[in-house]
């Protein structure tokens, strides 16, 4: 839930990176932290285990454009992807404004991707938020690996809704399209925010440029788990 403060002249937004375990959510934040101008970012805070698995969340505050003298502040969070930490994911999703769903492109991760996306929908529903109302983008991560599903299959699995989301082929370890997806969700947030100045937030999410028609099911079969 965005907050606007007329005294400190700030507008705050919360973006959550969501996805299955080890899909690259923390790598996204680490890359953004490394590459964004230091004057526009705070510290990257990671609450992780000794093995660098996210235990609670990662957090990165960013400052963006100034609109009419108001600084827009984006707070980026990740959730722990492991199934057992659902209570933590629900906590981190509280007051969320936008979501980047990070899918792992490897064939053996398809089931986990679908399960995680369903889990996202359920956890949003607990806050009375529909996935169709909230600005979100999809990342198909790890495109540099060999054993990956084609994009049309990922689109069929995760982006085959009536209103389709913008999606990106991402390699978070090298930074490919990490900023493109962050910029896309941030701009969708600002667009939605601009439409909420005088009306209740029942405005439809912004149409995504170049949105294609729903995807037909490709004739591809997920290989059995090794």
């Amino acid at each position: 839930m965005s907050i606007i403060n007329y005294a400190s002249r700030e507008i705050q937004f919360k973006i959550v990176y969501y996805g299955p375990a080890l899909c690259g959510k923390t790598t996204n934040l680490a890359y953004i932290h490394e590459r964004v101008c230091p004057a526009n970012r705070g510290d990257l805070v990671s609450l992780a285990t000794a093995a660098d698995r996210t235990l609670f969340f990662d957090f990165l505050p960013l400052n963006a454009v100034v609109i009419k003298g108001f600084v827009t502040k984006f707070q980026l969070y990740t959730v722990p992807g492991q199934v057992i930490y659902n209570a933590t994911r629900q906590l981190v999703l509280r007051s969320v404004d936008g979501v980047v769903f990070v899918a792992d492109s490897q064939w053996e991760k398809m089931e986990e991707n679908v399960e995680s996306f369903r889990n996202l929908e359920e956890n949003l529903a607990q806050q009375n938020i529909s996935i169709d109302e909230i600005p979100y983008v999809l990342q198909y991560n790890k495109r540099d690996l060999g054993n990956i599903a084609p994009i049309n299959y990922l689109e069929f699995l995760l982006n085959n809704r009536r209103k389709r989301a913008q999606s990106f082929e991402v390699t978070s370890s090298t930074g490919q399209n990490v900023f493109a997806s962050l910029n896309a969700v941030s701009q969708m947030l600002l667009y939605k925010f601009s439409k909420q100045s005088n009306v209740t937030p029942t405005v439809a999410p912004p149409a995504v440029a170049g949105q294609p028609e729903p995807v037909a099911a490709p004739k591809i079969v997920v290989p059995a788990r090794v």
Partner: protein
Amino acid sequence: MNCIPALTIENVASLDGILGDFLKQAEAELTVVIDRGGNVISQFGDVSVMDVTIIAALAAGSFAATRELARRIGEVEFNALYHQGNGSHIFMNSVDDDTIMITVFGRRTTVGLVRFYSATTAAAVSELLKSLPVTGGHGFTFDAADVTSVPLFVDRPV
């Protein structure tokens, strides 16, 4: 807080008045009012030595994480949490269902004093937040095309 919270200069001045009085009475260093999602609503005191945004995110997480612990002993949640350091300490207490108050204090005062004054302060903050007019929108108008046509964040080579 079902609408978009928009704090006017008058609202913030009123909040600052309440928080300023509290800091004087409790002799604390800093107090921050946040929502349970970790967003800063208002802050008062010496903010030069710490990143309030990060403190807010971590405090909201800490408060939420102990809720499950509270349930195990038959409580809905813990109304207050205290983290004791060697020289600096943090006290957090619930303001209402959506809001938490964080107080950072040092050797000049005691947790008892902070706890005592924070209760009345939380009640006053809660009253003030409840009194904010509920409107459907935030009243801040701008043309989205001005900010959505260029990238907000730039990938800067290291």
